[in-house]
């Protein structure tokens, strides 16, 4: 019984993190129609930023905030150089460009910061809380809380604010959105920066539990893609939901089937969903994106 609860807790804790990364990915996909394979690299940037700012004797919170700004700025530059020129080109080209960006960022950071893992420790990172034999580290609790807050904020921003309306309109039908006064290019810019900054926060949050090293983003990107597809691409509640589902599938398959086949099972689940409900598990209204 304890084991079952622990498995669920593990899954939910990881799920919250996946949701956060997927959130950025799904936003960017929605507005730019870009499958951003460099998404995880922004988590890496956020994590490195957190590490180096903390080396300058800043506190964890400060370092995270600064590093999310850094992630956003780098995202801005990359958007100008690698994605903006391709906005009218085929989506496949943008995706490929993002792959190039990923290679570039990973290897550049390896060149600049060496491949050695760096350790970020804050006051939460060591201890965990315990209830009925179930353990959860404090840092993970922090991740869950921050992730839920950010997911909620993003949801509110999109659904309730004027800016969010513009973003949704631009993602549904860019040309018509333009006709009604929405500067779609600028919206794409802002969304991209916002999306990668969110992922940057995720990087800063995970730094204390996962350590910081150049290749840390790659597996996060893959997870985020699974989450996004499960939840329906460009669908915010779907991404949040999908995050938890992937986290749970992972922990259950590790707990009851095989740890070695964990990834195989996750991707098989993805396959099943794609076959049965290609538009994602949460989507209600059918209707293709233009």
């Amino acid at each position, binding site marked *: 019984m304890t084991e079952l609860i622990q498995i669920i807790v593990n899954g939910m804790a990881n799920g919250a993190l996946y949701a956060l990364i997927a959130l950025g990915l799904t936003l960017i996909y929605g507005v730019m129609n870009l499958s951003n394979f460099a998404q995880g690299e922004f988590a890496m940037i956020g994590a490195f930023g957190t590490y180096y700012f903390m080396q300058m004797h800043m506190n964890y919170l400060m370092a995270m905030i600064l590093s999310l700004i850094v992630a956003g700025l780098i995202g801005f530059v990359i958007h100008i150089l690698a994605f903006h020129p*391709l906005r009218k080109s085929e989506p*496949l080209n943008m995706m490929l460009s993002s792959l190039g960006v990923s290679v570039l960022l990973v290897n550049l950071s390896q060149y600049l910061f060496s491949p050695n893992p760096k350790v970020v420790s804050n006051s939460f990172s060591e201890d965990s809380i315990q209830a009925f034999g179930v353990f959860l580290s404090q840092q993970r609790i922090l991740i869950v809380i921050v992730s839920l807050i950010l997911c909620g904020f993003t949801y509110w921003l999109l659904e309730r604010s004027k800016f969010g309306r513009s973003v949704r309109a631009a993602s549904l039908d860019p040309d018509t959105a333009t006709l009604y006064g929405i500067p779609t290019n600028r919206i794409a810019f802002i969304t991209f920066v916002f999306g990668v900054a969110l992922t940057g926060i995720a990087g800063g949050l995970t730094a204390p539990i996962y350590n910081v090293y150049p290749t840390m983003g790659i597996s996060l990107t893959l997870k985020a893609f699974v989450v996004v597809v499960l939840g329906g691409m460009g669908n915010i509640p779907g991404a949040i939901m999908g995050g938890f589902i992937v986290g749970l599938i992972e922990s259950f398959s590790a707990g009851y089937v095989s740890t070695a086949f964990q990834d195989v099972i996750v991707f098989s689940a993805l396959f099943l969903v794609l076959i049965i409900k290609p538009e994602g598990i949460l989507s209600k209204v059918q209707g293709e994106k233009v």
Partner: protein
Amino acid sequence: MTKTRLFYTAITILCIVCSIASLYIQNLYLLRVFILAAITAILALSVNILVGYTGQISLGHAGFFGIGAYMVGILNVNYHISFWLCMVIAVLFSGLMGLILGLPTTKLKGHFLGIATLGFGVIVNGVLNNWMQVTGGPQGIRDIESPTLFTIPLEYGNFFLGFIVACLSLLVLVIYLLIKSPIGRAWSCLKQDEITAYVTGIHVYRYKLLAFTISGSIAGFAGSLFAGYMTFISPDTFDLNQSISIITTVILGGSGTIAGPLLGTALLAFLNEWLRNFDELRLVIYGIILVAVIVFIPEGIYPFFKNKVISIFSKRKKASQPNTSIEPHAGKDAVNE
């Protein structure tokens, strides 16, 4: 007609020259580079059938590549079946896998298809890595028999290169014929607009499945060649990076053309080796070049230069022959599609 014949003659001469030249390459390193490049070229051609001719994305082609290689490895080492028979089985089996993958995924589009095929690649890699009893797990399979073709031992790099160039030429020919056949026309039709294709009476689903099957079996063929050449295979070769590098090759070179993937392979193979001079910055530069090429030449290198050449030659003719090629981006601006 004369143009076509010229094309064939050029190709034939090129192949003959390559085959002969391959026998006289003294440098074993260059030989290895060429052979591996030729295998990559076959892979690129197979992905091109999906990406270039039918407009489907595949981010999991290393899966087929791996299935082909492992079929040969497993059958040859464990059951001592001759290499050539293994190869036939591998090609058929990976074609079958293509068909099976195609059954659910051909209904998907764009990014969804991309992620689904990516998932296929991850699943295959996971199975290769973990199904210890059959695939040997991370250790891979060693001591695969080096093939012998009519008493020519292909373990010598020169002969293998000659053989593989011949295979490649044959494949180019087959694909060329395929593209010019009704199948190819159906593909290009459904690539442009599936609904129109459907209305025109093309069985879209079936043609997509066919593309998946053919593409899978060609990748499997490349895999069996790889197994025969390396005589050692392990799951590391058939990972996501491999899938990504194949599709990168195709798109950089120019998808939807035959010369594009070949040119892409040649350039990337060259780039990869040349960049070794830059030590630690190697992959940084590689990334920059990748992004730069896509940003500046999104249509691919081959079509770009071809258009350049054509525009130089056709300046005189322009008055009499209006350019009727339809821009692929035209639809993007249009609100009504």
